[in-house]
């Protein structure tokens, strides 16, 4: 049972990370705020470990997932270098946002993230098979499980307060704003047309009257 809860927590955390990387901010926040606390509490209740050990295990799990995300970031960087010529600034902006979000979520130093407009230094290019040198450059002390939970909570609160969705639309990007309005309209049309079979609607009306 304990193992189930533990695996669930791990899965959920990974899923949240995945959703964030896919741009589904709300989905990720939903998992972190609704699903995860319950699963972690259940695991903590079932587990026979001491409180300190529980924290340590959680910390390890978060770090492990973090490492996976870190690898993804590196992969993105690699892609950035490779496809730079093809996709130019557009793709860099997307990757930049992606990196920033991940760094922000995990409390990493975002100043090291390269802005989309910065030229890519040739030194960053890596040769095949060579281990990335970045890890040895500046060792960042891993945050504790409590710190991590606190950061996630603050991040969630900030995001909810600012309401800046993963892909915020700049005020003067009118074309994008119109697209967003039309998309929402289309979505709501689909929603409202789906569950409205004529016969059902009539019978409901008859009942209510």
């Amino acid at each position: 049972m304990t193992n189930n809860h533990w695996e669930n927590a791990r899965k959920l955390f990974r899923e949240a990370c995945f959703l964030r990387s896919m741009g589904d901010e709300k989905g990720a926040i939903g998992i972190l705020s609704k699903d995860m606390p319950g699963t972690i509490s259940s695991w903590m209740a079932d587990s026979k470990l001491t409180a300190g050990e529980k924290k340590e295990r959680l910390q390890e799990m978060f770090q492990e997932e973090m490492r996976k995300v870190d690898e993804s970031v590196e992969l993105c960087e690699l892609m950035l270098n490779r496809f730079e010529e093809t996709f130019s600034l557009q793709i860099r902006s997307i990757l930049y946002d992606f990196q920033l979000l991940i760094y922000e979520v995990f409390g990493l130093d975002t100043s090291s993230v390269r802005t989309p407009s910065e030229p890519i230094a040739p030194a960053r290019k890596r040769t095949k098979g060579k281990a990335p040198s970045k890890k040895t450059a500046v060792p960042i002390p891993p945050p504790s499980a409590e710190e991590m939970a606190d950061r996630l909570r603050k991040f969630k609160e900030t995001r909810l307060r600012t309401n800046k969705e993963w892909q915020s639309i700049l005020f003067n990007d009118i074309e994008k704003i119109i697209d967003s309005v039309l998309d929402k309209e289309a979505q709501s049309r689909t929603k409202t047309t789906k569950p409205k079979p004529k016969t059902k609607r009539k019978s409901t009306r008859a009942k209510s009257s």
Partner: protein
Amino acid sequence: MSSEELTQPELPSTPDAVDVPAETENAVTEPAVGDQSNYIIVGLDLGTNTSCIQAVDAATGNEVCNTVVPTIVGYADRGILAGILPDDSAELFGTEALRNELHLRISRPLKNGVIEDVDAAAKFVKHLRDIVDPGGKATIHAVVGIPSNTDEEAKDNVQKAVSGIFDSAILVPEPFLAAYGFRDESRLKDPEYVDPVKNSLFIDIGAGTTDYCIIQGYFPTPEDQLSMPIAGENVDEQLEKGLAEAYPDTRISLNKVREYKEKYSYVGEPQYGMKVRVPVGGKPRTIEIGKQIGEACNMLLENVFQSLEKVIPMARPDSVFELLQNIILTGGGSMIENLPEELQRLLLESGYENPRVLVAGQDFKTFVANGALKVAQAARPEQWANSKV
């Protein structure tokens, strides 16, 4: 705050005046309408009390109209004698309906900021279209403002009201349009100018709702907005009730009450000397309404302040101090005397640091339509194609 139609500039008097051929290549033209004689872009604010429509010729960019019209439809009484109503019309709109109120059944298509009578709203929109395009031949694409956090039914009603009248319509939240319309792009390089979309809190006190919107450089999401159903109409009701209690032998119509409010409204300490003449049993009598006006408007102030206290924490904590410096009042309610000062005082007393409440200005009736027109001008042809109504 007159209820007159503020037409600026004059409306085109003949169809020819607006039927400008859309020939210019670099204009915002749609391939599908290439054979049309003209093509007009419209920004529309369909308001509870007044509506504003602004239009430009897409080909030339010339202004076609910029008009504020009371949102009123008047249906002629059955059996009315010929010659009483202008052109013996069965339906009159706006100021003309108000002028002939005695012989009409008056309908206000909107209540609390949303359409309540779809048929009347559609007729009213058709009237607005006739102002823009008397010949009825133009292709018209419109951006229409909708209140923040409008539900699906309300949106659907707007779609129905404009369907078949405009060729396509895009519905955009009003607080965004108000801010966008208020923004003066020509002054953005002026160091003295505070860009209202950078970090501001807009409070649009309309007739049906008071809308709050935090704008911090991004298109506001639904969570950035709060709509409260306490607004100008509630002031009217409270004032009507207050006057009926103070002067039980008088009967004052709601339209008259609204007129008094628009002329004398204030908040703060009671003011006196506001005297109006009302008929009592057919005889004129002068009554003092200062106290009642103050009570009704202070009720609105209190509600606006309470909601404001809910909205401010929704802003990002590190942006709040700057945000408090840019609280911008707009809508009809913003014209209430002393409102910014009193709101500022309440905020200060409540512990907020250096709040500054500004009033958008006399042009408040046009901001939403102006923003809508700017959006409409930026829309791509395929976006219009995706929003046929």
